[in-house]
């Protein structure tokens, strides 16, 4: 199995209100098609770790590798390109662009990547929406959907560029129990059917228990 994501001695400090070691020497590997959850109490550093892994937070010590290529220290434009091409994000809140249709929201990262034609992208976006059971919402504005539907569209958007890894920050944190189970099922489905590598930060133990591997964090360390 190939290693998709690897960290070496990630250490990070918060400087306000006072100097505080939020991540302490974190090293781990995530293999291809693994479904990993990171759990821990509030303030354990799990969300901070996810944003460091996401390449959006560059203020840390240590090294991060995606498929054995070091990404630590790369320029912002280069990192943006890596996020576009290799990483999909799902957040607690869906962050769909309200002026666009669901379909367009899903298409935008692929249009930015500009690897396929607009028609090919549109076909693919439809396929993914169908896989996630929201294809009938494709032409509705994102703001008109229910919370669960919005989150499914957001997952579709994360999948559009066939990312090497999907990173999720409390993807069910904002949903009721019914929608939570739907979203959980979807993650399991894309993990098993698409062999998608997923790392998810959650404090929902049921969700964590349904993943392949649980990493528990405490005081900035992985237990």
């Amino acid at each position, binding site marked *: 199995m190939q290693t998709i994501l690897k960290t070496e001695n990630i250490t990070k400090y918060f400087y306000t209100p006072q100097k505080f070691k939020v991540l302490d020497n974190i090293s781990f590997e995530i293999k291809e098609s693994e479904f990993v959850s990171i759990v821990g109490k509030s303030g354990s550093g799990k969300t901070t770790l996810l*944003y460091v892994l*996401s390449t959006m937070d560059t203020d840390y010590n240590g090294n991060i590798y995606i498929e054995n290529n070091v990404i630590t220290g790369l320029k912002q434009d280069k990192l*943006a*390109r890596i996020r576009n091409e290799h990483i999909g*994000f799902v*957040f607690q809140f869906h962050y769909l*662009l309200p002026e*666009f*249709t669901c379909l367009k929201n899903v298409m935008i990262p692929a249009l*930015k990547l500009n690897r396929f034609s607009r028609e090919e992208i549109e076909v693919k976006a439809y396929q993914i929406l169908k896989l996630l059971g929201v294809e009938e919402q494709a032409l509705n504005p994102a703001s008109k959907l229910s919370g669960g539907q919005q989150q499914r569209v957001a997952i579709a958007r994360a999948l559009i560029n066939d990312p090497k890894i999907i990173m999720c920050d409390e993807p069910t944190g904002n949903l009721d129990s019914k929608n939570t189970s739907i979203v959980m099922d979807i993650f399991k489905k894309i993990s098993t059917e698409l062999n998608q590598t997923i790392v998810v930060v959650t404090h929902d133990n049921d969700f964590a228990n349904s993943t392949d591997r649980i990493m528990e964090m405490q005081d900035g360390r992985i237990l």
Partner: protein
Amino acid sequence: MKIFPKIKLNVDLEIALTHILAKKKQTVIVSFAAAIGIAAFIFLNSLVLGFNRDSDEALFKSTPHIRIYVEDKMSEPLFTDSKSNSLTIISNPKIINESKKLLNPEKILYNVKLIEGVTTATTWLNINIFYNNGSAQVNGSSSGVNIYEANEMFDIQSSMVEGSLQNLISTPNGIIIGVGIAEKLNVRIDDNISVVSPTGIVKIMKVVGMFKTSNSVVDKSKSYMNLSIAQQLMAQGPDYITDIYVNVEDPNTAVSYLPLIQERTGYIAEDWKAANESAEASKKTRKVMMGSISIIILIVAAFTIYNVVNMTVKQKLHDIAILKAQGFAGKSVVKIFISEALIIGILGTIMGLILGTLLVKALSKVYIGGDRGYFPIEFEPKIMIMGVFVGLFVTFIAGLIPAKGAAKVDPVSIFRNL
């Protein structure tokens, strides 16, 4: 929502367009603010151009582009004292009482006319005279001219109200006077008046024409007569000429002819700008005044655009964060928001051009009478092109500042604070 499906849009531009179209009303209102700025810029600059052309035209009715004349010379002290310890000599230099006569005026005229770019050149003799009719006396100045050449230069015909220029040729002792003189002396066409020159020579002359200019002082003092009569009034021979007036193709380049004319004639030549510095100064004042007003209006319009783009950025922090998370680089974000400003700017510029043109056209149809006729405003493509560039530049800057701010948005801090 499909926007212009035929055109292949860059995704950054597509997002900008969607933002703009989502708020059509706001876009139109802001574009209108920009339009007013650009229209004001075009209108005020056209106004300045019109006024300046008009005042130049008025000036060129009595002033040639270039005047060749004999410069007064100051007398030189007999002793020049350079050593400080020697005897100090007090001298009192004065103007040398020399003739103002240009030597061989026909040769000068011939040489000047040969210069490329010279359109008209004519001999000219200005004299101060008294006009008398009975006991009524008016003082003024008369120009001894070749009336055809003078008309070609100053378009005297257009200000004639009675009689004709032709009559001056056929009547050697004829005189064309301003209407103010005629009124004061109570004379009509074909009446005789007596004219007294500074040398004391009196001549009876026949009024063959009258003119009316926009300047009443000129109307009350100015007259034209045949050159030979003016020479007789000065008690001089037929080669007595004090001035040669020259017109060139482009009056604004008059100054560039001066060295050549001085070289070919040996006399001083002065261009109209040097002779009318106050007119030039008032033109510059107008330009600066209107220029600063139009710039202030443009700045206000720019602030409106800045405000709207800035507000959009503030409202869309979450959108910017998610776009950055999805791999939109800082320069893409800058492009999105500058595009929004430029779309507003382009709309505003188009509306501004239309509005400005309508304003200029409307005002140019306003009749104000006098010898001006219609309101002096000029419609010129150069100003329109300048308006387009200024409008787009201003909106670009107004968009650049908030767009730069948007590019600096840190997605992590947005996501963590939700």
